[in-house]
């Protein structure tokens, strides 16, 4: 049996109210909200967060033997982005890490290829959707990541029972490398292309799985062509009650991450023996049919998509624009930080990317960061802490001032004064609980400085 062993979505906390766009630009916008990656997040950091939840949710002992990272918005070209994810997850050195970047379709391609191959593969998909102010893409897009661990055996919670693709070359949506926006051909053209491709792949996939459309318990149709997605959904022969919410009114459409975000959400709410159909329209059609197994009854997400969807916090439109670099705001009058030393970062990979402390030889307490005399590794990334004291720095350099900063005491020992994120000083108190999150501190000379910050713990809706 081969299929999905664990899955997780990561939804950043910031939400843009689409009506704020209308108020500013005079057009565009719409109803509802979209998710927004914070100024210190990129597709790599969001991918790390999704993968961390997927690994935490997986049965003990499940370790990937390959990592595939797919995004439309890579933080580096030439250099592999998946290696930072690999380092943050502390995967073994013999685990290869590959990027599959560029097209939206690469993400479902990574998932499909993983399910059809062997071994335990961690597939991470991540996207940061941009568009010009007032554009449909800006309003309807969303930022998110999702990860799936694909493998064999009794741990599989959703078995692949059939998959088919249909491919054709046509120009419907495209982007010149480096551009902040995508362009689209007139809507109707894409629809006339997608519908027959979708029909074909759907029919053949059902046949391969030996099931009828009626047997599908949850139907997910994903794609950036909203009109084609809507039309196809209505003609696949699956009842409305089985059609999954696409979360467009709360987080928007996170492009390359959408298929796995929605599939994860379906898994989080499915019982055993249910058929989940994932249809992706992107330069063709890909259909993946899964049937949940008995193992899903004992699988529980460490942090569900719904809990993260519910935990949104509004970001003003101006801040959204400045975070994306569309609007240049006055920076603090401080020198910009120097680029990270590659060799120094390389020596401290475990600390910088893995948040691994040392242990004091005298007291046995965790040392953060580790010192030359430290003994042993103390992984701290998944350890929560308590705010001993905190302050706000209105003069330090930050891509989005002011900096909120706290002295954090970690459960089980160890203290570190560290920057907070996803927090405003007005909402904080001494004694608040925080968790660690992987972030991009700043970029200098094109080198992204990845490290960890603390943020208020997100509690699940059921406590």
């Amino acid at each position, binding site marked *: 049996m081969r299929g999905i062993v664990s899955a997780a979505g990561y939804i950043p906390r910031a939400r843009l109210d689409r009506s704020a766009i209308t108020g500013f630009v005079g057009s565009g916008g719409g109803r509802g909200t979209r998710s927004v990656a914070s100024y210190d997040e990129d597709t790599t950091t969001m991918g790390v967060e999704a993968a961390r939840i997927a690994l935490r949710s997986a049965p003990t002992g499940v370790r990937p033997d390959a990592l595939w990272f797919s995004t439309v918005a890579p933080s580096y070209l030439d250099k592999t982005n998946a290696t930072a994810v690999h380092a943050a997850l502390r995967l073994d050195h013999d685990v290869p890490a590959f990027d599959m970047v560029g097209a939206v379709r690469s993400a479902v391609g990574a998932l499909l290829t993983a399910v059809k191959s062997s071994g335990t593969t961690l597939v991470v998909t991540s996207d940061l959707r941009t568009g010009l102010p007032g554009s449909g893409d800006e309003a309807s897009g969303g930022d998110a990541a999702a990860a799936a661990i694909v493998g064999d055996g009794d741990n599989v919670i959703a078995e692949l029972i059939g998959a088919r693709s249909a491919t054709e070359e046509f120009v419907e949506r495209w982007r010149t490398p480096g551009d902040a926006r995508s362009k689209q051909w007139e809507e109707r053209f894409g629809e006339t292309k997608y519908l027959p491709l979708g029909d074909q792949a759907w029919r053949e996939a059902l046949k391969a799985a030996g099931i009828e459309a009626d047997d599908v318990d949850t139907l997910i149709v994903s794609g950036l062509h909203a009109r084609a997605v809507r039309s196809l959904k209505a003609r696949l022969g699956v009842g409305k009650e089985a059609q999954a919410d696409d979360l467009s009114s709360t987080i928007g459409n996170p492009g390359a991450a959408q298929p796995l975000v929605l599939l994860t959400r379906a898994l989080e709410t499915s019982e055993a023996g249910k058929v989940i159909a994932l249809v992706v329209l992107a330069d063709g059609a890909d259909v993946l049919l899964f049937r949940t197994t008995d193992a899903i009854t004992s699988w529980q997400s460490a942090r569900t998509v719904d809990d993260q969807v519910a935990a949104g916090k509004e970001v003003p439109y101006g801040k959204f624009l400045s975070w994306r670099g569309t609007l240049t705001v006055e920076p603090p*009058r*401080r*020198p910009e*930080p*120097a680029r*990270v*030393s590659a060799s*120094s*970062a390389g*020596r*401290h990979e475990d*600390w*910088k990317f893995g948040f691994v402390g040392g242990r004091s030889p005298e007291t046995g*307490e*965790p*040392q*953060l*960061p580790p010192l030359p005399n430290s003994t042993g590794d103390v992984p701290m990334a998944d350890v929560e802490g308590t705010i*001993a*004291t*905190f*302050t*706000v*720095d*209105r*003069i*330090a*350099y*930050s891509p989005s001032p002011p*900096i909120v*900063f706290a*002295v954090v*005491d970690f459960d089980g*020992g*160890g*203290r*570190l*004064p*560290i*920057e907070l994120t996803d927090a405003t000083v007005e909402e904080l108190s*001494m004694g608040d609980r925080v968790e660690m999150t992987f972030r991009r*501190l700043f970029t200098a000379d094109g080198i992204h*400085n*990845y*490290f960890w910050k603390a943020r208020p713990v997100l509690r699940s809706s059921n406590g």
Partner: protein
Amino acid sequence: MASKGIKDQVAIVGMGCTKFGERFDKGADDLMVDASNEAFTSIGNGVDKNTIDAYWLGTAMSGNSGITLARPLQVEGKPVTHVENYCATGSEALRGAAYAVSSGAYDIAMAVGVEKVKDSGYQGAVGAGKVPTDGTDRTLTAAAMYSMIVPAYSKKYGVAESELRDVLAHIAAKNHYNGARNPRAQFRKEVSTETICGAPKMAGSLGVFDCAGVADGAAAAVVVRAEDAHKYTDKPLYVKALSLVAGTGAGLSDPEYDYTTFPEVAATAEDAYRQAGVTDPRHELAMAEVHDCFTPTEMVLMEDLGFAERGTAWKEVLAGTFDLGGELPVNPDGGLKSFGHPIGASGLRMMFEAWLQLRGEAPPERALGNERKLALTHNLGGYPGEMVSFVSIVGTEKG
């Protein structure tokens, strides 16, 4: 601590100090030359740069190597040592010169401290030294790190933050009052507590007036063996104690550390008092110059330096204990608040006030109101939990 000290072995016999401020008219070269020449002039007797056997230059960010001083002063064929130790840099230069003379290696040595901060183009101090790193260091300003004292002190001693606000304002107002009476200070205006409390916030609850300014400046001191002191001046200052501690940074990672004290400072104070034989600093010292980089720093220092019992400094501040004419005047020259903080110069600038006050050369409007014979200067550099601390004690009499 095992330091034996060099009590009464070395004396300061000459000093100079430039006016501190936004010296866009002067470079580090000019400031060093001015301070050095003033020190030579204060001695007279034909003492000049050629009389000095060895030099110690303290600067954190205005130059590297002894050449930084040797070139502008044109000292030829002499040892010039460059030292840096954060905000204790100026005091570190004096320590080097004093220890060299006490060792017998030289008869006469000079310490010069300088910083040219205002050439950076930024308001406020910008980081000294750009060591390539892995990018995981804190990027917080000192103001933010020291702002964490306020809620911590409030919680530990049950003093409302609103009450502490008055305490901090009193400290700033006191130092500006003193600085208004000092022609070498950068800021020479008294500032009301209303203005101080209403100032825009910089970090935490600290406003602009809770933070020391930034300035350019230089100061210099000439030291000789104590037995030779009277060849140069009738009123030497004998070095009673020089104590330095560089912290391990343990406070940053120690959950027991509570941001209401600086252990490095307490250690240097204890060591310095032992070296000098001081048992009751509050009543033995004529004055103290302390590192008031931020107002809560000065409050905590009153306890770490043993001027007030733990948890009482805030009351003592409000009672005027440390005002000019109070029981123990603190920062009679106006402190970092009035002078700003040219990093390499501040330690020697503090010593310059001890020089003036103990020799009776300070103007009457800055009179201490006591006749004691000892003065203390104190620097710290770094942050709560991870700092260097320096305490010097000097006196007009041996023994």
